[in-house]
């Protein structure tokens, strides 16, 4: 019984992390029609930033760190978008290739700066004490992660549904040309969304640190999960990314726990299922 509960909680926290990772990816793909293959690297960059910051400054607030890393990664993303991606507007394949190239650059840079060893990230002290619910003990931090994901989801929802910026983004997702025709500054919007997506990934990386640790190859581990979440949940749909993240969180956690060698196949199956029967994903509004 204990096993199921613990794995269930782990699933939820992984799901929360995946949402932080894939919400940005889904936004970027939805609006810019760009499969941002740098996304895993953005997340990893955040994790490394967080690792260094939290280990160097004892008692540093993790939320501040996450915010700081998010801004830093967003800035890097923004520079990349302005300097490289905008030059490739007519070459969508080229855009994907440069995001791939950028992911190599970032991941090797991390290797260069932080070395090849895995760097564990300390759980924030005020969240270390376990929570007691119904006589069961839960690691508090994992619960907090789920809360973060939900908070981010709500914030993004408000941004998209209740602000003017959000309305412009949604218009751009639905019909880019029409949006331009109505005077929406689509190219500035692209930069904003790319920064937002990268920033959320970076912040998510910091928050994921205590659970995942910072290690070379984290980006390669996370990117396919983001892809699978977005394929499952549907491109351009925040709700899809949310639900998809938790479904994958559950499948991956229980899969790895019960059949460690076949975990990847177990992940793979819902993806095949979705692609075979519903290629636009569970909630997709944009065709792949």
């Amino acid at each position, binding site marked *: 019984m204990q096993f199921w509960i613990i794995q269930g909680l782990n699933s939820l926290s992984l799901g929360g992390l995946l949402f932080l990772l894939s919400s940005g990816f889904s936004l970027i793909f939805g609006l810019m029609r760009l499969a941002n293959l740098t996304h895993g690297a953005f997340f990893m960059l955040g994790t490394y930033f967080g690792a260094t910051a939290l280990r160097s400054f004892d008692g540093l607030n993790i939320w501040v760190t996450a915010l700081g890393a998010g801004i830093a990664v967003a800035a890097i993303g923004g520079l990349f978008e302005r300097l490289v991606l905008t030059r490739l507007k007519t070459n969508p394949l080229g855009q994907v290739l440069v995001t791939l190239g950028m992911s190599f650059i970032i991941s*090797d840079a991390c290797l260069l700066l932080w070395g090849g060893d895995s760097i564990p990230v300390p759980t924030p002290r005020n969240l270390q004490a376990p929570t007691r619910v119904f006589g069961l003990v839960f690691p508090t931090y994992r619960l907090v992660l789920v809360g973060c994901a939900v908070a981010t989801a709500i914030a993004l929802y408000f941004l998209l549904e209740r602000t003017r910026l959000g309305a412009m983004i949604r218009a751009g997702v639905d019909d880019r040309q029409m949006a331009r025709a109505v005077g929406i500054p689509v190219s500035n919007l692209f930069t904003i969304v790319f920064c937002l997506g990268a920033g959320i990934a970076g912040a998510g990386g910091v928050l994921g640190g205590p659970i995942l640790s910072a290690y070379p190859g984290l980006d390669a581990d996370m990117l396919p999960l983001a892809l699978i979440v977005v394929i499952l949940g549907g491109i351009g749909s925040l709700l899809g990314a949310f639900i998809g993240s938790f479904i994958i969180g559950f499948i991956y956690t229980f899969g790895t726990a019960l059949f460690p060698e076949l975990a990847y196949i177990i992940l793979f199956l819902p993806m095949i299922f979705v*692609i075979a029967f519903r290629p636009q994903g569970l909630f997709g509004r944009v065709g792949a």
Partner: protein
Amino acid sequence: MKWIAVAPLAALLVLLPSFAGDFYINLASQILIAAIFALSLNLLVGYGGMTSLGHASYLGVAAYISALLTSRYGFGHGLAAIISIGGTTAMAAFFGVIALRATGLGFLMITLALSQVLWGLAYRMSGVTNGDNGIAGLTRPTPFGLSLDSPASFYWFALIVTAFAFLMMAIFVSSAFGSSLKGVRDQPRRMAALGFNPWMIRWITFIYAGFWGGVSGLLYVYYNKYIHPTSLSTTSSAEALLGVIAGGSGTLGGPVVGAALVLLLKNYASAYIERWNMLLGLVFLFIVLVMPTGIVPGLNRLATALRRGPR
């Protein structure tokens, strides 16, 4: 094709071992293997208009099947090769059905996800694949009793296979099917209206590309006598893609030139720079931004312009 240029090149290739040292002969073998791999990917990318980031799957799976059958189950190389290619081609057929549910970026993401799954399996199922240690101590086949252990003998073997592969792909590309493939790449709706079956054309091409990817995988594992999950990684697929794009997709010579370039860069650069991946990334950025159509088309244009003379 300019046959006048080909004859001296062919002579050079065949006679290479007589004037080059072992290091260069081995390098040439590696280039040949990379060339087949890049050419097979180019069938998809250049001629089919389907950009795949998971092509290393076919190289890796063929290599692993051969490695396992020969080292662990005592199969002879001949039978192992047949099973290996057969299995890889079957896997390509299966993956093709899944990946072709989408086009463009969706297709790319699916091929990436599928190859990552295979890579993950190669790492995790250490009971079968030996995980991160890879499978070592492999042997090279002995076709007709001839040993392939010396650099020169392996080189000639690889050269024969590469020449054959190149010829087959040249015929494929200029055949009726090849023309229909290019047509589907350029105007799929028009092709359907004319009576062509776009899905079937793409699927058959996908399988054929997987087949040759598998062939390159066999050569790869014979050459290295070792296989490791990295050969299935996205980096491996990306290197091939870079070679195709840098050399010029949509031509036959382009991928060969590009693959050679990437390999040479990798070999020389890794002697001086530890971070090969970063260099690869920068080269990607450079090529896409500055030379999007690739080297060979660029040279072709130059040659045509020179031939036409000043206008």
